[in-house]
């Protein structure tokens, strides 16, 4: 396979799984420029590591591991440069926002803020859960037991509920 074909095949894989990259970037970076930098870095690392992919594993597991490792390292490296996050900064920009009631929109913004305040590893866990990954795959990606995944997730959801309850929403 020559480079152009390799690139086409890689493009196909990226297209199929672009949701993963987009979600990770949006979850770990509050500013648009940072999100773009991170996405480029993830794509580069995936391309660089492509030859080492072991087909015994699921492609998504491999991709998640690389993308989340890059995102966490990127986040940690730039942490000191990050300004305190405000509610408006975490409002995700979309082209045609679906119609939602202002109450729902407020709740959604708060949820974004609460998730953004989670620790790096908790955020990774939440993201994988939102992707409907099985506990077994989450455990493989993150490196903790399935029981631990279940307990951590239930605690994270409980914490979110409490945060909303404190605001009486």
């Amino acid at each position: 396979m020559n480079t152009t074909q390799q690139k086409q095949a890689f493009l196909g894989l990226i297209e199929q799984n672009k949701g993963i990259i987009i979600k990770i970037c949006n979850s770990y970076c509050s500013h648009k420029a940072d999100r773009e930098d991170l996405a480029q870095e993830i794509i580069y690392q995936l391309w660089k590591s492509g030859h080492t992919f072991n087909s015994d594993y699921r492609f998504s597991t491999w991709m998640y591991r690389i993308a989340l490792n890059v995102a966490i390292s990127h986040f940690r490296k730039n942490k000191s440069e990050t300004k305190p996050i405000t509610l408006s900064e975490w409002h995700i920009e979309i082209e045609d926002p679906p119609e939602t009631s202002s109450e729902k929109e407020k709740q959604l913004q708060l949820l974004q803020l609460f998730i953004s305040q989670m620790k790096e590893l908790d955020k990774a866990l939440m993201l994988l859960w939102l992707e409907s990954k099985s506990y077994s795959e989450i455990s493989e990606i993150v490196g903790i037991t399935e029981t631990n995944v279940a307990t951590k997730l239930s605690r994270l959801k409980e914490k979110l509920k409490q945060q909303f309850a404190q605001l009486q929403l």
Partner: protein
Amino acid sequence: MKEQDLNNLLDMYNRRLEETRVLNLQTWVLNLENYTMIQKQKANAKLKSLKLQKTILAILGILYGAAMVFLGIVSMKWQTIFFSICAYGIGVITLIAAFVYFRQLYWINRFNNEDNIISAQEKITRLQSSTLWVTRILFLQTPFYCLWFVTPASIVNAPLSFFLITLPIALLFTYATYWLYKNIHLGNAHKKWFKILFGSREWTHLQRSQQFLDDIEEFRSSIAVR
């Protein structure tokens, strides 16, 4: 908020994460070659300088350490007993520090983004914090530098000033060395003296490493706590 309401909200959040317009993945993949070249140059320059610095330090450490051990062995006589012990001590400590540099090089070469998140992040953080190890070990040499010139004859014939100046200084350095060896660890990264010793950039870096290691530990052991 009820469980179902939260799940609905999370579902909405999930869909919104995917709908964002911020990324142009196609263009980046098509420009991958250019980007790869730039990144490679950046990464190589950074990694090369880090590897080169550690390799030079490790090689110099081995040469210096071996020379000092050799000196310590060949000068092993009663008349020069302090010199021998000091040279031997400095040599052994330097060799240990060189070994730590080699171990860091091994870690750098083995780092892999494809490891599970906990393991990969732990490796990076441990590599960042292993600078402390070298500093800690190298401090142990200090008392030897204070005593190498002493001989048994000079102690017997020493004037009072020897006991009033040299000895207290040597004891002070020995205690300081012991104290630093005991206290230089990530757990003290938040303290002021640590910041002075390592400079504020390294200090922030190490403090963050400690925080992250704590997070990993907490994340891993959350089942055991309850």
